[in-house]
């Protein structure tokens, strides 16, 4: 993902700038798509609602990333996107996307790669569904460190729990254990600082047969 971030920046002038407050729904699962978005400032979470009403987070969009690509070309939105802070986003309609791609052929490749990245992200969630919670958490934390290109990760424990699809208590217990082991630091509220990347990688790799 790191190399996908900000690649869309040259085309922002063609998009429609939108400023939103926290807790704004950008698009809702099931709605017919009108286009896709770019996150310029703030933060956005992506949630998935299952048929029986259970909701979980499946992604946090990094700054400079695209989201809602599935809503392009009249596709229906497969997830919901909600801001978790005041945000600045750019909207691109189908018509604008097509025009950009016609003028800048490389844009079609960036757009496609961003979509493929989302597929990979989902496949990864599936591959971890039968793994222990601690392993899933370590993997997710390492991924966030890569996405944010920083060991300081701005995520609260409730959001973390919703991503792993477990309780906040379980997440807290494991984070406290890691803190004692010196793997992470929890000095700030709503943030985790990864201290020992190697140690976390070790947790991800255990149980591999």
């Amino acid at each position: 993902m790191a190399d996908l971030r900000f690649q869309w920046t040259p085309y922002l002038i063609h998009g429609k700038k939108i400023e939103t407050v926290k807790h704004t729904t950008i698009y809702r699962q099931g709605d017919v798509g009108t286009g896709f978005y770019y996150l310029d400032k703030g933060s956005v979470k992506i949630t998935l609602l299952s048929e029986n009403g259970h909701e979980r987070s499946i992604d946090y969009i990094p700054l400079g990333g695209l989201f809602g690509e599935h809503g392009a070309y009249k596709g229906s939105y497969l997830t919901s996107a909600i801001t978790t802070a005041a945000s600045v986003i750019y909207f691109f309609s189908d018509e604008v996307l097509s025009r950009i791609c016609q003028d800048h052929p490389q844009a079609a490749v960036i757009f496609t790669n961003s979509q493929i990245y989302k597929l990979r992200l989902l496949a990864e969630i599936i591959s971890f569904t039968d793994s222990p919670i601690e392993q899933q958490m370590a993997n997710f934390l390492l991924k966030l460190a890569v996405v944010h290109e920083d060991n300081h990760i701005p995520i609260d424990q409730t959001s973390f729990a919703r991503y792993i699809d477990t309780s906040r208590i379980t997440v807290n217990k494991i984070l406290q254990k890691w803190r004692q082991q010196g793997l992470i630091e929890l000095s700030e509220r709503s943030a985790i600082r990864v201290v020992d990347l190697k140690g976390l990688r070790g947790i991800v790799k255990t149980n591999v047969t």
Partner: protein
Amino acid sequence: MVSPFETDLKWETLLKYGTRQFVKAKTAIYKQEALGEGFYYLHKGLVKIVTSTFKGKDRLVNIVVPGQIMGLQTMDQQPHFTTAIAVKNAVIYHFSCTQFLETLKVRPELLPLLTQTINQKMRILLTAISMKALTSEEQIARLLLNICEDFKNHEVPLTQQELADCAGLTRITVYKILKAWKERGIIEIKNRTFVVKRPDMLKPPQLTANTTHPV
């Protein structure tokens, strides 16, 4: 003038860019972890897509029917995250990713088709994720409905074992659920395949309303 972007382009019209290949039943078309350099269009036959979880358990992700694309994930030049195995003898068309991306630059009208195809793949993966929140019975019901939609046919060409792999359940659980449904006339079982008689009964409100013995 009709906008070139509202085209009804389908993959069949692009087969000239692909290379035709024959694959024998039970052969892998591409393997998980292998570096892919292309994707495939299934012309004839049936292909199953399997993924191995981190713990090493195999899980059936979906069944590819003729007219569908598989292996698109390697468009970004990274390894495959699934394995595709021909269930029956198959005729496929191979497309080189780099070549396709070059074609895309010259023919931007291909982008909607590509986007829609990726959208379908995304839907499949999201279904697999949200399945985890459902009861065993709801999972099997969702799977059967998806398969019926894909095949445009109410005959399900899967064995109970394959259905179990698909949902990550045991074969015994699947057997029990199917047996209960057979008694209620929702499905009919004939020599190793089964036919969905009442798809409406598999949809959420009816399914839970009629469940007397939760599984």
